[in-house]
């Protein structure tokens, strides 16, 4: 085990960095996707509702690994068939898109549930003062909804971080992929996967601890 760490330590840390980069990128886009589609679903506009529901159902209905294959291999092929020759997606780009789409769908549901958990009277009070729907959402409903959502959002963050391992199948050199390489080179599966597992665990436990602190801080002022 120590031998593996000595030989492959820096590569493993680098791979972990790639995992975190992929997580961070997908989460940022997923937040935006989630917010947009959740707002489409909480409003009363039927056209928006249709697209919002279609997105969530569509993406949730497809396994992440299939979505990743589709975006990495399928989409460039499709674009070539349309006559554009030099279109390429790197593994990072395709991985980010697949993860962001996937996580975004779940995030949309989390945010929608958060918004709907806020008493209707809050929106009414804000509207009755003359504020627009958008301003009322931004100033009154969403800040309260986010407090409710924090535990579920953190949970989703952790799931997404772990889901990056699925993207080893499209060859992105993240932590799990590095584990495959090392165990293939050294034939020491037990030690390699133990190390990889512990690395994931350390990051995730650290994140949850940090999240707990954030949660406590935003709850100041609430009874």
């Amino acid at each position: 085990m120590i031998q593996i760490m000595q030989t492959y330590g820096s590569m493993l840390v680098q791979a972990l960095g790639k995992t975190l980069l992929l997580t961070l990128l997908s989460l940022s886009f997923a937040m935006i996707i989630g917010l947009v589609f959740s707002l489409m679903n909480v409003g009363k506009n039927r056209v928006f509702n249709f697209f919002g529901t279609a997105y969530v159902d569509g993406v949730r209905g497809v396994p992440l690994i299939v979505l990743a294959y589709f975006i990495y291999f399928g989409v460039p092929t499709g674009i070539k068939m349309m006559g554009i020759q030099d279109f390429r997606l790197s593994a990072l780009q395709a991985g980010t898109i697949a993860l962001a789409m996937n996580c975004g769908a779940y995030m949309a549901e989390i945010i929608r549930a958060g918004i709907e958990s806020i008493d209707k009277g809050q929106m009414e009070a804000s509207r009755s003062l003359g504020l627009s729907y958008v301003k009322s959402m931004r100033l009154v409903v969403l800040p309260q909804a986010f407090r409710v959502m924090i535990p579920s959002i953190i949970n989703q963050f952790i799931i997404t971080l772990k889901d990056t391992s699925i993207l080893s199948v499209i060859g992105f050199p993240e932590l799990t992929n590095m584990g495959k390489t090392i165990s293939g080179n050294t034939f020491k599966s037990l030690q390699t996967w133990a190390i990889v597992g512990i690395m994931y665990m350390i990051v995730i436990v650290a994140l949850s601890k940090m999240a707990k602190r954030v949660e406590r801080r935003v709850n100041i002022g609430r009874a």
Partner: protein
Amino acid sequence: MAEHDIIISVKNLKKNFGHLEVLKDMSMDIRKGEVVVLLGPSGSGKSTFLRCLNHLEAATSGTIMVDGQNITDRHTDINKVRENIGMVFQHFNLFPHKTVIQNIMMAPVELKILSKADAQAKALSLLQRVGLSDKADAFPSQLSGGQKQRVAIARALAMNPDIMLFDEPTSALDPEMVGEVLAVMKELAAEGMTMVIVTHEIGFAREVADRVVFMDAGYIVESGAPKDVFNHPKEPRTIDFLNKVL
């Protein structure tokens, strides 16, 4: 009454929720400075009528003119009209994530009606008026029901409205807190605010209202000066209701 004195004019208002007809045919004119109290059994449509006046409920048919603007017309900028109509809710609906003073300052600052400094000064003077100067930096969760409702009134007044709507403002309060809220409302009425109030406080209606309107099953059954309606009700349904509550 002179035409130009009328600030709210409702004509043939109907409101359905699905197949349920809540307001069947309501017409009412309200003068500037008038205090109108809506009475009636629960389910009679009082609250729905009040909520139609600032378009929290969209009318199914009929017209509602407020301040010369037709709010049932889709092209009317309802946000602009609402700036002029304050509303106080049964359950206060204060913003729990903001302090008392932030609650009061939010709308005038966000709508660029007052600068931050002016809004703060105004909020403090309003808090003084409702007797809560010391609560400016408290959060709503730290206040009693009566205090919350007084803050809610101050929040509505921060927009300098011409009209105030009250939707059962004392129904969610413990009995000993009702008085402090009614006192603030009484003061507002004395200053000439146009007020439309849904309440079960008959004593308050008798003392403060210029007109009481008795509603039942989506219609106006009877309306007039409080002394007439309370002392000499004409309609059997009014008599029946008053017998139960008095």
